[in-house]
């Protein structure tokens, strides 16, 4: 049955996805690199809120602020230490992407190792933590209970998207970011301080993604070291729906995927008895359909090749 809970879940999940995927599209559009460390930003944000709750700091807004700073700092560190030197040397974007893959693996197991030690100190014997934090209280509206976490998510994602819009469209640094996205080399020649602008862009991307991680933790309510990895497919599918180019389409993609994962699966489950564990297959299907029908040619590069010839040559 598609009920109120599926719809509320779609909204909360979709908003979290949106906040996570927007910065992925942004950083790809500016640097042409798919950043796999993005997954780490999510995990980082999720553990920030979980661990702060564990030590008694249970204000969700403080957690989001801390996650923003941590995620942003990590993103800038990556850029300064790895991405920028590689770009300077003229490395292919594919190579930079593979380097981000290496960073992702390194950070992931670093997190495992650190948590391993930390939880000996904290005397818990599991790496997963229940999220304990407080924001808005739950509200009852005409018999429907709206969870406080959902209200937090709505408020946070509105703030984030509004801020992102204003920064990109109304500020000088936003204009500079867009100029670099159009042509890195040209932007640098025309006097834009490319290095500084990129660092700012990475800070923004990492920070927002980590805030997305907090929102995702609020949705999941339990945080594990795999929390970021579990939504790789979803987040990348959303970004592909956005063509890795359009922020608006990315936002729409977030709701397409979360709708697929909540409403479509529920409908199919009721109608055809499709097991709920088939959720990821539906997302994969969405990804394939998008790539086949609207291939993101402009942003992703690609071959001017058509499988179907419009007509056969004739004499």
């Amino acid at each position: 049955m598609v009920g109120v809970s599926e719809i509320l879940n779609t909204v909360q999940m979709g908003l979290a996805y949106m906040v996570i995927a927007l910065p992925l599209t942004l950083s790809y559009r500016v640097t042409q690199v798919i950043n796999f460390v993005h997954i780490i930003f999510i995990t980082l944000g999720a553990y920030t809120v979980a661990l702060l709750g564990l030590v008694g700091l249970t204000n969700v807004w403080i957690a989001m602020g801390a996650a923003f700073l941590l995620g942003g700092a990590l993103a800038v560190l990556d850029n300064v230490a790895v991405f920028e030197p590689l770009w300077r040397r003229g490395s292919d974007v594919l190579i930079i992407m593979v380097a981000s893959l290496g960073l992702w693996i390194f950070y992931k197991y670093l997190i495992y190792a650190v948590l391993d030690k930390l939880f000996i100190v904290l005397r818990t014997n599991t790496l997963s933590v229940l999220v304990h934090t407080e924001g808005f209280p739950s509200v009852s509206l005409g018999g429907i209970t709206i969870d406080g976490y959902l209200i937090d998510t709505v408020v946070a994602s509105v703030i984030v998207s509004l801020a992102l819009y204003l920064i990109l469209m109304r500020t000088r640094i936003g204009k500079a970011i867009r100029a670099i996205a159009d042509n890195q080399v040209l932007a640098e020649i025309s006097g834009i301080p490319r290095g500084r602008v990129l660092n700012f862009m990475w800070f923004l991307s990492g920070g927002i993604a980590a805030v997305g991680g907090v929102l995702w933790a609020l949705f999941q309510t339990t945080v594990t070291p795999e929390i970021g990895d579990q939504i790789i497919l979803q987040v990348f599918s959303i970004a592909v729906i956005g063509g890795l180019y359009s922020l608006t389409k990315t936002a729409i993609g977030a709701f397409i995927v979360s709708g697929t994962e909540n409403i479509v699966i529920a409908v199919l489950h009721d109608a055809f008895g499709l097991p709920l564990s088939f959720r990821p297959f539906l997302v994969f299907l969405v990804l394939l359909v998008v790539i086949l029908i609207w291939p993101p040619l402009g942003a992703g590069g690609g071959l001017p090749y058509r499988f179907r010839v419009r007509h056969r040559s004739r004499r």
Partner: protein
Amino acid sequence: MESIIGFLISWLPIFAIYGILSISLNLEIGYTGMANFGKVAFYAIGAYLSAALTISVMLSLVGKNVPLYSIEAVQALSTEGTGALYTHPAALVGLFVLSLVLAFLVAGAVGYLITYPTLRVGPAFLGITVLAFGEMFRVFMRNYEPLGSTKGLFGLNNPFVWLGNSLLSQGLFALVALGLLLAVYVYAERFVNSPLGRTLRAIKDDEVAALCLGKHVPRVKATVFFIASGMAGVAGVLWTFYQGSVQPDTFVPILTFYVWAMVILGGMGNNLGALLGAAVFTLVDRALTFAAGMMGPSLIIPPNYLRWMIVGLVIVLVLMFRPEGIKPARPIKTPAWEAVKEEVGKDG
């Protein structure tokens, strides 16, 4: 001496498996420039195909009609002396060989098909789609009851287990694995040192320009994906018979990046480099396991985490400081060189 042999028969198959995987990835990324982030999918297809095929046929040979993953199946297969693995040696070896052939064809065909939706989009999209495909396969296997869902399939052993002497049977298996690795290496070397290898490099440099020179780029790429995926399938078969079992959670995405680290360290575009990379990583892995056994829990970072941290760091550091790897890409060798020498020499 005995410990060296013991080490070799346990290490050689692993080296062969990863050697085949890294040569196959090298064909894709090193020579053709296709980023395959889902190598593990084709490896898993080979592993599952061989396990399901061998177990089901062996069970029917001894007339047991039980689920493939059941305890009864394991008993019927591998009880020493009376299990099917011991009573039907010819069938076991035959199934091993058949598995190799079928795994190559099936994994290759799947690889060929999966390039279709992704050929027209950039390399990053191919990578992500195949990565997603691999995860789909794993999730499917985790939920697929007939093949044991999360527990997977058990009860197999190396194809020569009926010889009785475990040193002999494992040693023989190690040699067979090494032979397959050698065959794959020789094939890959010949494959790339040819006019086709030249075309592959051209596609890697600039696929649009290659298309404009009349090269059927989509078909060439799909063919390379077929061959490389088939090789990964063969590696999967070796894994099944080495391990004696398959579990879905062996085939996590990170395994793909383990192979990437091997290729990057060894040198993209050099088959010998890919082998070297595979040797280095499998040996480091052994050393870590050994050290962990010696030091126990006093190790600051648990070996399993340390291993992956090293993998991640190696990828980043090699790309930053020695992007060509241990062995840089070699120029393509064809008889053109000799012909040129003759022609240039003609008019002094």
